[in-house]
């Protein structure tokens, strides 16, 4: 193979990427010799916006941080806010929250399995897994009214109660997913092509995982037993002894490659099913909101001064929020750390020396979620003058008119 180095830009728009990010790789033949990761293409300044709005608005804003794990950020937000404000959610709400969060974990993990299958060109698996995912999306729609962005959490509780019919639907779905997970294990974990494409790819040692500060399934696949639900439990997770799912418990040793991470994710679906079963069976009676009146809640927030760090174990890893309330009805400081923020750290070391064919798998195996990073678009004249919005809008209109004229003749 020729020894000339090629420069391959992956992104910001590329079929392997579901969200914008840029990986610049220098390639010799099929080997990657230099990597640079550029992020921030989807930075929207959400934290900045949150610091200008009241807490309830910010809660909904936090839901828009990520499109896939849309309940994780609100969960971390309410946990943090309750810590900072000293509110305790009623027991029933504390049991409903994990049900929604775990259902979301199921759909997110299945989504990832489909995506990684697509990345290695295994489209049939993508279609099959996503067909199975429909059921949990339908269930979430039944429970919350939406397939995504559920908007059911509130500081001090949840906004929607579970009815008898909902519980029956949840139980049906659990039975379905026990079977489906069993099939997935059989189909994905024992498929020779899948194994050939993932074994040894994106291999992260335990030491590297610690040093790169990775979180969630990526860290667990490397053999680190870290899981917020286990280390710092909250809500109903405190009653259930959740244990981190690590490959050494399943097959004896942790290799930390893409195959192990698949295994971790599939077994976590089973763990989620267990958690949901427990929550549904032991659902306490009672109210669902500590302070049902929102103006009263905002008044309390205005009166309270406090700060806290809270976390939730999202499907991709831990979501950490820092909130400071300082006499305003919203947070005066809000810092969000999403799992991909840390997990993207692993790209550069893992891609070095890898092959071009491995880029999509390395990129996808952490299940990147770029939404949590934002960007400000600046347009400049060649002299460096920043162009205003009105000017750009005027130019856009002009161009549309011009094209219109060309097309119409």
């Amino acid at each position, binding site marked *: 193979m020729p020894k000339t180095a090629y420069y391959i830009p992956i992104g910001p728009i590329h079929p392997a990427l579901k969200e914008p990010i840029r990986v610049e790789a220098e390639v010799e033949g099929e080997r990657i010799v230099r990597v640079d990761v550029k992020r*921030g293409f989807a930075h929207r300044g959400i934290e900045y916006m949150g610091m200008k709005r009241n807490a309830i608005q910010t809660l909904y804003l936090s839901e828009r941080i990520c499109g896939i794990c849309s309940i994780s950020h609100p969960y971390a937000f309410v946990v943090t806010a309750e810590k900072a404000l000293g509110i305790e959610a009623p027991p029933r709400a504390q049991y409903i929250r994990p049900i929604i969060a775990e259902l979301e974990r199921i759909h997110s993990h299945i989504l990832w399995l489909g995506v990684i299958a697509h990345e290695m060109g295994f489209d049939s698996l993508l279609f099959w897994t996503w067909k199975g995912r429909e059921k949990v999306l339908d269930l979430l729609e039944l429970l919350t009214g939406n397939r995504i962005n559920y908007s059911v959490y509130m500081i001090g509780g949840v906004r929607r109660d579970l009815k008898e019919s909902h519980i029956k639907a949840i139980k049906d779905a659990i039975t379905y997913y026990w079977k489906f997970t069993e099939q997935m294990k059989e189909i994905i974990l024992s498929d020779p092509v899948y194994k050939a494409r993932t074994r040894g790819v994106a291999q992260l040692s335990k030491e590297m995982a610690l040093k790169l500060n990775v979180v969630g399934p990526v860290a667990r696949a490397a053999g680190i037993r870290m899981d917020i639900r286990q280390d710092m439990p909250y809500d109903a997770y405190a*009653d259930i002894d959740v244990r981190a799912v690590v490959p050494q418990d399943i097959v004896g040793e942790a290799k930390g490659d893409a195959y192990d991470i698949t295994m971790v994710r599939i077994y976590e679906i089973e763990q989620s099913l267990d958690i949901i079963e427990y929550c549904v069976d032991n659902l306490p009676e009672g109210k669902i909101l500590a302070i049902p009146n929102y103006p009263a809640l905002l008044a309390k927030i205005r009166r309270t001064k406090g700060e806290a760090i809270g976390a939730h174990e999202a499907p991709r890893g831990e979501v950490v929020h820092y909130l400071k309330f300082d006499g305003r009805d919203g947070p005066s400081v809000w810092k969000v750390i999403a799992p991909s923020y840390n997990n993207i750290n692993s790209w550069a070391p893992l891609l070095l020396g890898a092959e071009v064919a491995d880029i999509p798998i390395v990129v996808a195996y952490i299940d990147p979620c770029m939404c949590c990073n934002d960007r400000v678009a600046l347009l400049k004249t060649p002299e460096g003058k920043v162009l205003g919005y009105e000017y750009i809008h005027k130019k856009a209109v002009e161009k549309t008119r011009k094209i219109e004229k060309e097309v119409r003749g």
Partner: protein
Amino acid sequence: MNIEEVIEKLKESLGDALLNYEIREYEMGIRRKRKLYEVWAEIDRSAFRKAVETIFSLDYPHLHLISGEDNGGDIIKMIYSFGVFYSNPWGEISITLKFDLPKDSLILPTITDLMPGAETNEREIREMLGIEFEGLKNKRHLFLPDDWPEGKYPWRRDEYGVEDMIKHTHKSVKEIRKKGEGNA
């Protein structure tokens, strides 16, 4: 190692530089109440590196976040949050270091030599608040575009802020509606 021992260690190595500390307890669980502990320590900025090294000597920590707050005055309040003894059920102790950084010397030692993964956090703080990290190798912008103007930091609330550069995002919904600018 329990929470008292952690505090002892911090006291021992920092001495007077440990200005103030607080142990926060959170009771979790409905059927079985158990407690989680957090340490919130206010330290002197000169002892920051020492404090981090002490934490690393306890256990290889997990960096939760680095954040900073500029309330428009002369200082930036920095927050570093580490988790130690994680991977034990109910065992993680979160240690939060807080210190003030005067705006006339916004320099901090890097911790990337101890934890390479902290590079992301430090680069973000550097571009968002304008704090220089001594020893940070990669100083390129992380989230902001490469042609971002010098001396503008989005999280600052003083003359280095970006109020004049952003059209809508910093305004509340009410303000936008009032001015009728929401047609964009």
